[in-house]
């Protein structure tokens, strides 16, 4: 298990493109968008908060998390299934399930790194707050787990290796939209806002923003995330194929 972890970590590091997308792209967007002059001023639409305080960092973090969970994770797993890596493993004493665990651990690691980079980046560049409510960490972990369960379901359903990240993208962009990446949730028309409330991405961003700002997350947000996690992981477990 340790050896698989070491080898697979090396493989992820060798794939410099995915590292670029997961960490560099959200950070770059955080810096560039945050430098649009008006976004650094208190905004009555956001309840007097600045756009760069929690809205921008939380949506950029969701961008990083969805990239990890919805494209990188399913791409690797679907490729390994397609190439017969999982099949070959299942002829050895080590179960391919350990490969799955290793991928989850590595992807969680990347998510944590992205979070740390974005929190510090927002703090240093825009003077945004550091998440101050203790529930930020559980919210982050819960949200990442829910997104990964969707990623596993994509990996289970993708007919071949190439389609996995494509399906991931098709789910990712609407999710980012409803989570408020382009229009903050506060300024959404009621219909969009309602969809957003149930879109998994929306509650994740909302709960992260709340805890980022030092408040407790709403139970409604947490409930949607937990239900999503339970539903998608149950489906993924039922539908996952090793070969």
């Amino acid at each position, binding site marked *: 298990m340790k050896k698989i972890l070491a*080898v697979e970590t090396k493989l992820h590091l060798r794939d410099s493109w995915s590292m670029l997308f997961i960490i560099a792209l959200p950070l770059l967007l955080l810096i560039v968008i945050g430098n649009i002059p008006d976004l650094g001023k208190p905004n009555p639409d956001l309840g007097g908060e600045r756009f760069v305080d929690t809205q921008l960092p939380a949506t950029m973090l969701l961008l990083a998390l969805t990239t990890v969970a919805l494209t990188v994770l399913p791409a690797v797993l679907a490729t390994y299934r397609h190439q017969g*890596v999982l099949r070959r493993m299942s002829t050895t*004493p080590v179960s391919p399930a350990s490969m799955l665990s290793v991928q989850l651990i590595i992807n969680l690691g990347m998510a944590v790194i992205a979070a740390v980079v974005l929190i510090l980046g927002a703090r240093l560049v825009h003077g945004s707050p550091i998440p101050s409510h203790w529930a930020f960490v559980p919210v982050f972990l819960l949200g990442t787990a829910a997104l990964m369960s969707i990623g596993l379901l994509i990996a289970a359903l993708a007919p071949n290796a190439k389609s996995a990240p494509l399906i991931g993208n098709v789910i990712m962009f609407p999710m980012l939209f409803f989570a408020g990446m382009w229009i903050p949730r506060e300024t959404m028309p009621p219909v969009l806002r309602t969809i957003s409330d149930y879109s998994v991405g929306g509650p994740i961003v909302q709960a992260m923003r709340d805890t980022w700002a030092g408040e407790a997350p709403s139970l409604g947000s947490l409930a949607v995330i937990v239900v999503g996690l339970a539903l998608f992981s149950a489906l993924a477990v039922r539908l996952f194929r090793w*070969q």
Partner: protein
Amino acid sequence: MHPSGFCAAAGISSVYSMKVIEVTNLHKRYGTHVAVDDVSFSVAEGEIFGILGPNGAGKTTTVECLSGLREPDRGTIKIAGADDRDSLKRIMGVQLQSAELPEKLKVWEALDLYASFYGRTSGDLLERVGLTEKRDTYFGKLSGGQKQRLSIALALVGGPRIAVLDELTTGLDPQARRDTWELIEQVRNDGVTIVLVTHFMEEAERLCDRLALIDAGRVVATDTPSGLVAMVDDEQRLRFRPSGPFSEEILRALPEVTEVSRSGEQVVVTGTGNLPHAVTLALAAEGVIPTDLRIEQATLDDAFLALTGRKLA
């Protein structure tokens, strides 16, 4: 009788029953398509057992059932020393027909990783499969033959008692193929039982102690390579160009000869027994020398053709 007597008797009987693999009435369907209809064979300890047959005959499906990758629909598979999947995985090394590795995994890393699955080290395997110079190369950058050799190494890295090799030398150049045959013979000399699937008659003849010919999901014959060839008419055919004119009757008169015909300058003689000897002697008596003499004997291809009415390749 003493309880320990039972144990001793059981021990002895297992030593004397040399069968390592016993497959009986194996049947496997994909949907409605029957891939393996009725396959039975057994493999003795230390044997190199070949499975030969045309594309789609069900060879891969058979060995996938053998290695626990597929659940047969009917039939039984008994493997000595493997009472469950876990023990099977420890004693059997498998080379799959189509299994890749991650593009950016280096050769040594692959071997090291798979060795760790068995709690072993890779030893001199890299050298034995001739990949020492490629140890730092990415899997994605290897040639087809090199990938194949790495795949063989991965099947052997766990120090298996049984190695199952699907399409052992497909994609290898003739030199690499011969090197691989040598490797397999060495491995067998270490006491490993080998089941190999192949398309190549030459490979089957050279390596296998016994082989099963499979066609359309059924075993058509199981025997030694020479036994299979002997099943078909043991007729031989001689082709040559005579150095001068002679009467065909002197050949027809020979007891060994069944037929004489001419095609252009060439004479074709069919017959049995020590045909070349008899024919050259008779010709010499007439002062005629057979030039460009070629002897054609039945091959496994002919055996397969005779048994199934179909060509092997």
